[in-house]
């Protein structure tokens, strides 16, 4: 450096002299904005350097901050992931609880709508054997459960109680090979026996090949087995074909769909009518008049047997009341007069037709035969002639002739 200055001493001094005078000039001269040139030059000289320094500082600072932020972000990420996992599990639990609550609500609503007396139960275990279609529920004899009681869901039948314990019960599912129940089709009123096959499907046995069964047609419980109340849905037909001896009809049980969590055990069943199938004709039709439903009256309010009101039950009940009205004990002495309706006085001894009977008996007999409502409030459906066939199904929804219907 010293050698360089010595070699170019004259030029160096020249430059120094010029620089000094330039500074002197810049101190004196002002710009149009009344700013000295020297200040303007100094600011102009420093500004790029300052900008560069500031840019570097900012970038370095952001780099360091981002690094530390990244560390914090990583920890935050871990924490959030853990919380997310916990919230997911909680959400799943709450969804399960909500589903349970919804199912319980649906069960409660079904219980409220259903005339049958039921008790809700939760499935707590399944059978230990391979392929066993058995489950355990948390209701037992302490809750009034008895062997043979039906187990249902709002969507359909589930099974029946096989064994009862104090606080639990064993239920045989409809899909078990040992299960059987009486069923009837919705549209064509074809009666058969539902049997489990050990798989997810069930079959309806003992159907003649001539019987009409359509795919998609629903089967309901017929009530003939005295196990299930009449009118409970069983499932839709998945296939129907002609077999060697009987028709091959397969059903998908609707009660087993959606899993088994909560079920209802029928303590006291009430038969209901089979819902009519909706015909795709586009014509609005009124529902079937409720003629099959027996109306409870004061005379039978406490009678338990009235609740199981099939045609046979109603007939039996009628016989009982006739016997009670006449003080007759069945199996002893002469048979009672079935022409006399319960609540009416016994007619006078038999007279010649020309002599004229009592005024009360004459109108009573036609009235009884015609099935008109009596003074005792009997239902129009009750027949005074025991040998009379059951009332026909409504013609609007039944396409079959009366002769095809089985005698009940």
């Amino acid at each position, binding site marked *: 450096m010293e050698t360089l200055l010595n070699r170019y001493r*004259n030029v160096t001094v020249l430059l120094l002299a*010029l620089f*000094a*005078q330039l*500074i002197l*000039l810049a101190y004196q*001269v002002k710009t149009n904005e009344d700013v000295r040139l020297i200040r303007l030059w100094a600011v102009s000289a420093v500004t790029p350097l300052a900008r560069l320094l500031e840019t570097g500082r900012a970038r370095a600072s952001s780099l360091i901050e981002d690094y530390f932020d990244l560390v914090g972000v990583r920890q935050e990420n871990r924490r959030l992931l853990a919380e997310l996992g916990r919230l997911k599990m909680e959400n799943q639990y709450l969804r399960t609880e909500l589903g349970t609550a919804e199912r319980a609500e649906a069960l409660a609503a079904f219980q409220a709508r259903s005339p049958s007396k039921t008790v809700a139960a939760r499935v707590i275990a399944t059978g230990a054997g391979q392929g066993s279609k058995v489950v355990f529920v948390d209701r037992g004899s302490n809750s009034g459960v008895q062997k043979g009681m039906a187990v249902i869901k709002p969507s359909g039948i589930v099974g029946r109680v096989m064994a009862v314990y104090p606080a639990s019960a064993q239920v045989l599912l409809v899909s078990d090979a040992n299960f059987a129940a009486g069923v009837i089709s919705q549209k064509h009123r074809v009666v058969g026996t539902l049997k489990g096959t050990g798989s997810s499907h069930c079959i309806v046995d003992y159907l003649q090949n001539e019987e009409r069964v359509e795919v998609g047609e629903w089967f309901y419980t017929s009530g003939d087995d005295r196990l299930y109340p009449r009118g409970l849905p069983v499932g839709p037909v998945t296939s129907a074909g002609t077999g060697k001896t009987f028709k091959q009809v397969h059903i998908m049980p609707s009660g087993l769909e959606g899993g088994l969590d909560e079920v209802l055990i029928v303590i006291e069943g009430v038969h209901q009518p089979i819902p009519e199938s909706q015909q795709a004709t586009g014509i609005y039709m009124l529902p079937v008049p409720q003629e099959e439903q027996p109306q409870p009256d004061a005379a039978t309010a406490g009678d338990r047997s009235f609740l199981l009101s099939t045609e046979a039950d109603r007939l039996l009940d009628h016989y009982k009341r006739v016997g009670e009205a006449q003080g007759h004990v069945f199996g002893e002495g002469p048979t009672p007069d079935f022409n006399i309706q319960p609540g009416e006085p016994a007619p006078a001894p038999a007279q010649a037709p020309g002599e004229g009977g009592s005024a009360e008996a004459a109108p009573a007999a036609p009235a009884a035969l015609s099935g008109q409502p009596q003074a005792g409030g009997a239902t129009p459906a009750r027949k005074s002639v025991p040998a009379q066939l059951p009332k026909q199904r409504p013609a609007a929804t039944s396409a079959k002739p009366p002769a095809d219907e089985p005698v009940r």
Partner: protein
Amino acid sequence: MNQFGETYTLGRARGRKLLRFRLWVLLAAPLAAILSQVYVPLFFSPFTLFDLPLLVTVYFAVMRRSPMFGIFAGAGIGLVQDALSQQPLGMFGMVKTVVGFIAASVSVRFDVELAPVRFTLACLFFLLHHFAYAGLAHWLLGQAGEAEFGRALLMAFLNALVAVPLFHLLDRLKKDED
């Protein structure tokens, strides 16, 4: 080397004369030039065409043959001239600094005691001074300088005419040293 070179340049055989001046001469001559530049135009306005401080700077720079001396002589004379003008300090100083440096550098190669050489140098340095000052004024002060080259050439000629007798007058004040 041809005859021109032998006549006007300083060869090794002839050596280099180092000319010195008395101190009062170094102070009085520039001061007189500056004062005359300030006072005379009051009575004789064409005198503004001449730049006596520049001529004195050139003389001392070429006769002393020292770039360092030329730098300080030009800076000093120029700053004093600035101080007595309306221009900011440093305008004439910077330009005369450069002129003094170049004049001293050039004088090493030429025989500056010859009249033609002095005439030429004076003319060239005046033009250099004129355009350097215009450029500096334009750059720093934003002033529109005189860009007319013909006028500048005329002024350079006139100053060169004045420079020859002035240099001869100042020769009488030098102190020769071998």
